């Protein structure tokens, strides 16, 4: 298992989010993730567990 961090802009509110994804060394599954600011779904990511998102305040100010 390893954690990777992606930075994604929300397609709805355009705020930048950090997405923390736990990846399995084996097979990963489709997990949706949501914008930490507006709450809406950004997309889906292959992951071993539901990812966590964090709104990046300084980049969005």
């Amino acid at each position, binding site marked *: *298992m390893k954690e*990777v961090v*992606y*930075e*994604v*802009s929300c397609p*709805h*509110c*355009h*705020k*930048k989010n950090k997405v923390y*994804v736990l990846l*399995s060394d*084996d*097979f*990963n*599954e*489709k997990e*949706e*993730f*949501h*914008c*930490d*600011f*507006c*709450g*809406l*779904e950004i*997309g*889906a*990511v*292959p992951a*071993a*567990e*539901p990812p*966590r998102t964090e709104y990046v305040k300084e980049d969005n100010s």
Partner: protein
Amino acid sequence: MQHDHLISFSELSDSFEKNTSNTEKKRVFAAKVNAAMAQREPADAKDDEPFEYRSKIEKLEALDKIVAEGLDDLDSSQVMSLFSAYRDLAAFDKMIDLYKNTDNEDFKNAPMVREQLAVAYRKVPRGNKEQDNNEKLADKMWDYHQSMNICLSLIDEGYGNGITFENIGRCMRYIANKTEMNDKTAQAKRKNELLNDSLDHLEKGFMATMETSIGIQAVHGNILTGQLGKAKETAKVVYLAALRDGAEESHDYFCLSAALQAACIAGESKDVVDHLFHRLESSIRYKWELEDIAKDMNRIAKTMPSERSVDIAQRMENLKKLAIPAKNSKGDETDLIVFKHKLKEDRFLSEDKKLKAVRSYSYSYRGCGSAFRGTNRVGGNMAFGGQLPDHTVSRKDLRLFTGLVKMTPAELGIKFNKPIQGVNMDVVMNQPLTKIKDPELFMVIADKFIRQTFSTQNFAGSNLHMENNALDKKKFNAKDGKVVEESAYDATVKSVLRACGKKIGEKDPNIDTRTNISAIFALGMGDCRHHAQVKQIMFDMWQKQQMNETLNDMYYQVWQGKQVDTAGPKAQEFFEVLDTELRTADVQVRLPILMKQEEKKDWAKDGTSSVRKDAKGNAVMVDKPYSPQLVDGKFVVDKNERLHNLEDHTLCWLIKKDRHRHLIEFGLRDAFYQDLHYEWGHQNVPIDEIKVTSKGKPRIPAGIIHGSRTDTGEDIPIYQVPTPYNKGKRDSVVTNSIGRDVCLVGVPLAGFATPNDFLAMIKDRDGMADIMQQVLLSDPENLGWTAWRSPKPKETKKEISLQQGIACKGQTVSTTKLNLQEKLNQQSNADNQQKTLNMKNLVVQKKQKSGGKV
């Protein structure tokens, strides 16, 4: 409320006021939920106006406020709209709380709600700063077990589907990942047991549902546990299941990723693998998607090397080098990726332009029938002031129609006045529709059933032949002094809309006009769209049963440790069904005749219109739909041979391709226009005569108008071309349906518990005709329609039908048939039980082998 107030059709005529009041209450509630979920502040701000995006916290507070006002008066669809809103915001804890706090049993017991609750338990984050990691883990483990228990209950009750089995498999894998013990040997053993249990559930899930998403996980589970042979054989079936679900034309990364991996493992041909690779390449948007498929392909190439898997793994690695991070507006790199090289975006795996054209401008419910999520909506126009409600196709509809295709024509009450040529009617009438192998025979029977139920030839006994609906109109003076022309059908539709509490012409997006196709069919009130939709669903469910039967047999071979023969008779049987598609198309009926003219209007977004003017200030005139110029009742031929749109129409096309992906048969299979105007019930079109425009739109020759009906006395051709709004597949997901309710223009209906209840209403044609007439007569806005049905309609003379003929042969025949049917059913049940028993034995043997608990 503990239970929704469902109304029956017979209450409709007395429900004008009550439903109007209920509609208003529901409209107010829907507006509140919509306001809570508004993305912008102010909510109606346009892009070029100042606004702020609303945060998740604001939205949740607004939703919580609605919940705090009380749940007692809400029906299941209203509770569901809150549940869905929380889900849309990933507020899984709130979903769980809402489920606990509501008393609405219809909501709480609905399988779709419970599935979503199970997913919420799996996904809800646990723990707070005060808790240590062990406490958080304990909470999360409890969630996983709770999530699995919900799914196991659903499976026990017969509601197992892709989501339930997959959820169990995931939970077990997550528990395995989090399991820690002091004794590392015991820990490894326990993890192994859990992973095997996870695989068992995925395999059972695939056997039960034949859903691709579970199948590909079972493939990987087998790879991880070292069962490479089984992984390969499973992949062959998964690949076929992906084809059944329309992977060939999919845009979805996960669907394509599964199809590509399965195709590589199964050893599919190079062109298939290439096509899937190119579709996947053009669907990848994020860096992680590319990394994920590259990693999976790399593992497959290493563990199961083959020409295809090694090639695709290499191409994925190359693709990673070609991916360029997209930059945001500030110039920073993002995780979105783009490719500089030109991508191949062919939607279909075929070079045949005609095949591509006819498929691109039509749709079916094949994908819905397999991995169905929620409820699909075919938009109406009531929210924009029109009188066409939203049509929805929910799981409930699919379940009800699947129930119907498992019945015999005799049970369905289908009546034939003459035998179908070349068919033993005695056999056909008494075998389930699913036993029919010939699609043409199936469609003949389905058409009869559909036309009988919609009383196409005599709508509700009003003497209106539905094919004449656009012509057979009566003139009435409306209250505002205008002359209104409407048919008995048009008038009934309007009255039913009003009986359901809706105002015609009212533009309001908060008005719920959901109308399930089952409700329309049971009532028997349908035009060409409904005829086509019912036929499409029946055909797709019939085909799905057949394809799943062959896939199931093939996967059973895998369970028995045998190889799957993808060129064998079972596979051929599967492809025979797969390559024959019925697809619904919205078309313009175009022919070289002159039409009456009207002023061209430009419509604004707010629903207002203005007349378009030319440079000189004169109104621009255009053809008036459904209004041909007539002389002595004959069409006036356009001497310039220009094609004009006589009407918009919806019908089914039969599309058949060969294994080389060429269109080999094309036909019109319209359930609506069969007797008058056009003979489209069964009209094959020579492939050579189908033209494709430079934009890829098909032009279908659809017969002729005979010279006796034209002013020149000469035959003129008819063509079908896609309507401007025909975009192929056009349905969208509805969020406020629990997937169980059946609605008529937003009003939940009683009487749809089982396919047999549904059938009882379908068979009660006289009763439904009385109800429709009564609704029209009770309508305060009735323009002057009077009763057309005799006081005792049920005692009117009935036509002698072949079905009655069979029934008249007496009890002996029926009993014999019943006994035969019972035997067939018993045999089928015995087969299934034997299969299940064998599967269980295999599981037991495997578990005993691996030392796992049974």
